[in-house]
């Protein structure tokens, strides 16, 4: 197979498929065992300094905030982050100093809320290094290759751009048509957290809304922590097996985490906490403000329950539930309402 061109970005998270088969055979249980534990225990067991990590959901939608908080509380550092439409999740880890390197599809910004002060500061002053560029489909299909247990997936993206030049992809000759085709290599993150609507104690998990990249990312992870709005009896999921997106044997830990996506949205449950995100954007303008945020909400709280109290408790969470369900108060609410 003729290689036409090679990107010179770092090859992050790649392993020979046989190595990963061996890993999955030796380290991933097939037992129906109760994997419920606290976020603190899950992070202590499954996330280490220097790991390649990825966060499920969509950056500030259906994110696994209890796991992100624990990574910060436990002082884990030198992570390489898969920047797969990362938003608040990445910004929190980068601001706290947990991340040294990023493979970037989308990072350092908060979609319509604007560029991320903390993330940009760290990448522009060199504290965080972008080791390769990618696109959303590049990372999605790097995870697909990993889920499939194959070394790469052929695609028709990246060709002719600097995004390709700074990626870990290669352009080869398609042995059938003779045309150039881009190969994106498998990526197996060491540790992944995914927040879901429902899971049973074994880890079988249901995502009620869009799956985003998670059906593939779950299969790519070498260790997977599932956090769930609700832990349900496995009999309930057996009544709807088609809706189980992630099977138990891909899951290492199950954490019960109601409101676990706060301050992000959890589709069908609660809306973005725009007040809180605004506070984040303001405080992270400076290093001092960033430390103040972390001390108030993360390192200064013992666990996620205490954090939820610090952000307004049941009253605030009920408001966010109402907004998600289109019961927006006449005045107030996100995007320029009176509350802002």
């Amino acid at each position, binding site marked *: 197979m003729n290689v036409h061109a090679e990107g010179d970005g770092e090859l992050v998270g790649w392993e020979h498929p046989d190595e990963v088969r061996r890993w999955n055979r030796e380290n991933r249980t097939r037992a129906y065992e109760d994997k419920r534990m606290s976020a603190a225990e899950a992070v202590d067991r499954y996330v280490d300094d220097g790991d390649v990590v990825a966060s499920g959901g969509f950056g500030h939608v259906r994110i696994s905030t209890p796991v992100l908080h624990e990574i910060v509380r436990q002082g884990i550092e030198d992570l390489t982050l898969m920047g797969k439409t990362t938003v608040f999740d990445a910004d929190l880890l980068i601001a706290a100093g947990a991340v040294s390197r990023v493979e970037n599809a*989308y990072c350092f910004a908060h979609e319509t809320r604007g*560029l991320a002060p903390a993330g940009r500061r760290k990448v522009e002053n060199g504290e965080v290094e972008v080791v390769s560029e990618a*696109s959303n489909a590049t990372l999605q299909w790097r995870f697909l290759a990993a889920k499939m247990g194959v070394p790469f997936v052929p695609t028709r993206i990246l060709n002719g751009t*600097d995004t390709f030049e700074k990626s870990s992809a290669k352009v080869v000759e398609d042995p059938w048509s003779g045309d*150039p085709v881009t190969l994106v290599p498998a990526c197996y993150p060491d540790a992944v957290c995914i927040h879901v609507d429902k899971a049973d104690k074994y880890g079988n998990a249901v995502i009620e809304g869009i799956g985003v990249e998670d059906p593939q990312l779950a299969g790519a992870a070498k260790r997977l922590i599932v956090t769930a709005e609700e832990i349900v009896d496995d009999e309930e999921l057996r009544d709807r097996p088609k809706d189980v997106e992630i099977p138990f044997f891909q899951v290492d830990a199950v954490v019960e985490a109601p409101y676990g996506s706060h301050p992000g949205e959890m589709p069908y449950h609660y809306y973005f906490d725009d007040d809180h995100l605004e506070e984040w954007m303001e405080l992270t303008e400076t290093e001092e403000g960033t430390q103040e945020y972390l001390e108030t909400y993360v390192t200064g709280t013992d666990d996620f329950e205490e954090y939820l109290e610090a952000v307004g408790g049941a009253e605030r969470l009920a408001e966010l539930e109402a907004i*998600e369900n289109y019961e927006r108060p006449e005045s107030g609410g996100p995007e320029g309402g009176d509350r802002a």
Partner: protein
Amino acid sequence: MSDVAEGEDEGEEYTPTELLTTVASTLIEDESTVIVGTGMPMLAAMLAQKTHAPDATMIYEAGGIGPDAPELPVSVGDERTFHRGVKAAGMHDVMSYMQAGFVDYGFLGAAQIDKYGNLNSTVIGDWERPAVRFPGSGGANDIGSLANSTIVAMRQDDQSFVDELDFRTTPGYLDGPGAREEAGLPADTGPQNVITQYGVYGFDEDCEMELELLHPGVDVETVQENSSFEIEVGDYERSPEPTAEQLRLLREEIDPRGVIR
């Protein structure tokens, strides 16, 4: 361009964003599929649905297809992108539909563009140690590679319309006719239009940018003054001003809370 211009027909005032939205909406044909992000392109697609293109389907790259939500999304992955939708899919699905030719239009933004419609949304300055770090490709490279045609909406000045991009994030026509196919990108794809605060551009047979529509009140000289590369100015027309009905739909039905103005 002043912040508020006055429509000739109805005497109705409109904002620059409202003009861009109505102009962009006319580019979307009925019975088509459109990948949009949040912001103006989303309003344009919704306006098209409520006027000439009732069977246009909006697709969001995180997985939402054909939503029917009473409120605008703020993220391309939030519940409003698949509320009462045709399908709550995932990114792998949407990228695959697009790679298989099912997506007609993709809307893109950028910090820089060159005459072939190649886009930069990654860095200003050096990649290793950038003066300004932008979010990167996100889905832009994928949409620019795989959608049947792309429509770019961006702010125009001589720093954004450049001879040479600081970083080529997303393919336009690369280096000219035939270059996309030669590089391995799908045949018969590429940028169709570029919309700025001054006008709407297309691409000529050399795949170079040319003026198609000039917005109301804009001098033709302004177009060249705000570009570092030469823009072909041949036969062009004036952009139609927003009609009273388009403005009513935007203000009362599509974005009554004025999230995007």
